[in-house]
């Protein structure tokens, strides 16, 4: 079963040296992580909406919140408990949050 981990952080918060690195996490997760990437900051985001014939563009992310999606990972797990365990080990979970969303398969 595939899950999308949406990695969300408030980018004013700096990780500390005590936090595990993403490399450690990747090594731990191994083959269960199918894909994933860090994303550029919200300053480089553009939001697209079409209303009727008009294409409406907004500079920035779709939602006004403190936490923004800074990356994603796709993992293949037996069940939600395994996905939760992997998400809880993600370095960003310590100061941000990780939304675990099942794929509609």
């Amino acid at each position, binding site marked *: *079963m595939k899950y999308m981990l949406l990695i969300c952080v408030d980018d004013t918060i700096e990780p500390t040296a005590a936090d595990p690195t993403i490399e450690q996490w990747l090594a731990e997760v191994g083959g269960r992580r199918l894909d994933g990437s860090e994303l550029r900051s919200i300053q480089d985001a553009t939001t697209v909406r079409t209303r009727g014939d008009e294409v409406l563009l907004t500079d920035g992310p779709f939602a006004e919140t403190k936490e923004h999606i800074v990356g994603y990972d796709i993992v293949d797990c*037996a*069940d*939600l408990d395994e996905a939760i365990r992997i998400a809880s080990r993600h370095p960003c979970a310590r100061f941000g949050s990780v939304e675990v969303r*099942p794929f509609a398969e």
Partner: protein
Amino acid sequence: MPVEARVADLFRAERGRIVATLIRLTGDWDLAEECVQDAFARALECWPREGIPLRPGAWLTTTARNRALDRLRRSTVEAAKLREVVAMPDDDPEALDDHGFRDDLLRLIFTCCHPALTLEARVALTLHTVTGLTTAEIARAFLVPEQTMAKRLVRARQKIRNARIPYRVPPAHLLPERTGGVLGVLYLLFNEGYAAGAGAELLRRNLCLEAIRLARTLVDLMPDEPEAVGLLALVLLQDSRQAARFDGGDLVPLEEQDRARWDGEQISEGVALLDSALRRGRPGPYQVQAAIAACHATAERAADTDWPQIALLYGELAKLVPSPVVRLNRAVAVAMADGPLAGLALVDGLADELTGHLLPATRADLLRRLGRNTEAITAYEEALALAPTDAERRHLARRITEVTAVKESARP
């Protein structure tokens, strides 16, 4: 015993276990519940003719399983699932022994109480799936429209399926935190019924009884978990006061209750359970709360209550559960042990942390005992405006009348 009564008893005692087994076999919560429902209906048809089988639980399980098999065959969706259900032998006592039942039921309870579900969903799902209360009954008990409750249940089951919440007892490293969640759901259930009071009330009373029954089941299933035993002791000790807590719909405070009407059997069972839990040397919040309830339950008169001991226990509880309500209760106990002034100082320290009627109601009682009647009346009125139930409002109104009368007569 007539067949109908026997079936009703079995429904209460066995339904959760049979549903749990069927969910394990079919992986489909709706199918499992419908087939179990059908099996009970079949029992009502067949047993008057054929007599009650020797092992009615096994009969019901087999009937429900065969019904599920039929339905799966007809839909022929999941060949693998079908093979699995077929592979369960009809009359294999091993497949239906108490141990298998026990594991299935425990699996069901832990899945219903999975922390990825909202607390409301956990409570509703546990009641519906494990105890078999109908959606309408649960909705009424929680004072929400039936449609709201139905949506809550549908969403919970969708999430279990779509997010693949595992149907199992969590592995050892997750067990402590998950067990706490299960106990929390059962205690919430009990309190929903207990706080409700005398009127609405038959159904709300049922919530208390269901919570006690579920706590008993959990102790059966996890005999080595002292907090489960502590929770059962706690709900028994609290429930033992049920008959004395109301006077024609009015809440009777603990110290004024007729202790002859407390349920002595429940009290001795609760105290014995608590002792056995404490002997394991792993105290937790439910054991400490049960110990406090036991102090009240075993005092022959209100005046005999061991308040210093209760104040000490609340101090322990506040370390385990740092909540303002616990500290408020500690303040009350300290007031009883060391006098209202000592209690009032602690209560006033909580003003920033605690909203609702409990804080002003407690302040009011302490002020009344200090003879500061004008301040007491103001505090009672503040509490009255915030009190959530009729019974509590009536109690507070009665206090205002009493204190006002004292004040008038004291006037020169």
